């Protein structure tokens, strides 16, 4: 039986790869997008997934998205918290509004979405939640401080949530991509890219599909004993 999957931030580069991977496997996929309607439409046309517009930093939008989902699907089996963004900005130039913007988009959205969707998983006594972190929150790298903070917090969110939801047969894991060939990584300045590749065992940036493959595995029953983990997909660094 096809699983129902929700991917947040589905119109971005990694979001698109995630939607495509799950659709290729015959799963029923919903994805959210905020502003990029053109991309969302293209992904819908190409994959047959269903797009839902929402600003996930707003509780009203999240409630509307969850209601829409509930009207269209009896259950949600997999939630992938992928929505997020970064700003290339040194610490000294980060202003309060930049901090709030990055923290809210990466973290508050994850909290609000998870709270709305986990209720249905709790009721069904099953589910999988996968949070997308970043190497920026794990290694000594020249990365924006607010983005690194938000992505490091994803791991704490995963651990505490996994503990609380375990008794309802809900697994929660983090996937931590390294530098990828597209998406957020495309904003990384050349100097930092070369620095990363110098220490990366694979010697190349990762592909979106390689991260999507790890997420797909974690969402599958084959990963039934993997819980509260941080899986790095970074080529070895």
């Amino acid at each position, binding site marked *: 039986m096809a699983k129902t999957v929700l991917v947040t931030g589905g119109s971005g580069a990694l979001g698109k790869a995630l939607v495509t991977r799950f659709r290729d496997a015959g799963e029923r996929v919903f994805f959210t997008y905020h502003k990029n309607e053109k991309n969302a439409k293209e992904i819908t046309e190409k994959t047959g997934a269903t797009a839902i517009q929402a600003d996930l930093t707003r509780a009203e939008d999240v*409630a509307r998205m969850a209601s829409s989902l509930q009207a269209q699907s009896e259950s949600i089996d997999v939630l992938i918290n992928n929505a997020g963004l970064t700003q290339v900005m040194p610490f000294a130039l980060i202003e309060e509004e930049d901090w709030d913007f990055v923290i809210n988009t990466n973290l508050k959205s994850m909290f609000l979405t998870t*709270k709305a969707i986990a*209720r249905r998983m*709790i*009721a069904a006594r099953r589910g999988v939640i996968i949070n997308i972190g970043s190497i920026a929150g794990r290694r000594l790298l020249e990365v924006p401080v607010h983005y690194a903070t938000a992505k490091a917090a994803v791991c704490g969110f995963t651990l505490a949530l996994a503990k*609380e939801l375990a008794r*309802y047969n809900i697994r929660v894991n983090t996937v931590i991509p390294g530098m990828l060939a597209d998406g957020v990584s495309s904003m990384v300045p050349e100097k930092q890219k070369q620095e990363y590749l110098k220490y990366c065992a694979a010697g190349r940036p990762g592909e979106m599909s390689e991260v999507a493959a790890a997420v797909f595995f974690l969402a599958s029953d084959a990963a039934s004993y993997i819980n509260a983990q941080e899986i790095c997909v970074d080529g070895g660094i």
Partner: protein
Amino acid sequence: MNRQEIFTNVRSCVAETVHVAIDNIREDSKLVDELGIDSIDLLDLTFQLEQRFNIQLSPGEFANRAKEKLGDTPFEIKDVYTPKAMEYIRSAMPEVPLAELPDGLTRQELPRRFRVATMVNLVEKALGALEKKNG
């Protein structure tokens, strides 16, 4: 739907959530201390109630209503309800004995005061609002 019918349905949802025999659930049963409900169970319970009664229950609604009513008067300071907030809470939660709602109560302590009747009242209010909305 009358109050008794609402209670019967709420009781059945509570029983499903915490796996307690239905006969052991009274209107004045304490959700946390007697029935063993925790915060995640509360999410589960409110979701089940929403499904059962076809209503929307927002956990933050209670605080939002109180804040609206209090206007500029603070509702809580560092997680401790203000005396004005406590006045509101006491009037909004008549099912909880006054002795359990003293001044200085914290946000973390309030859910331990919830009774099954608290849920019955919430559902009753939500059904009333829905009826009003639908004319």
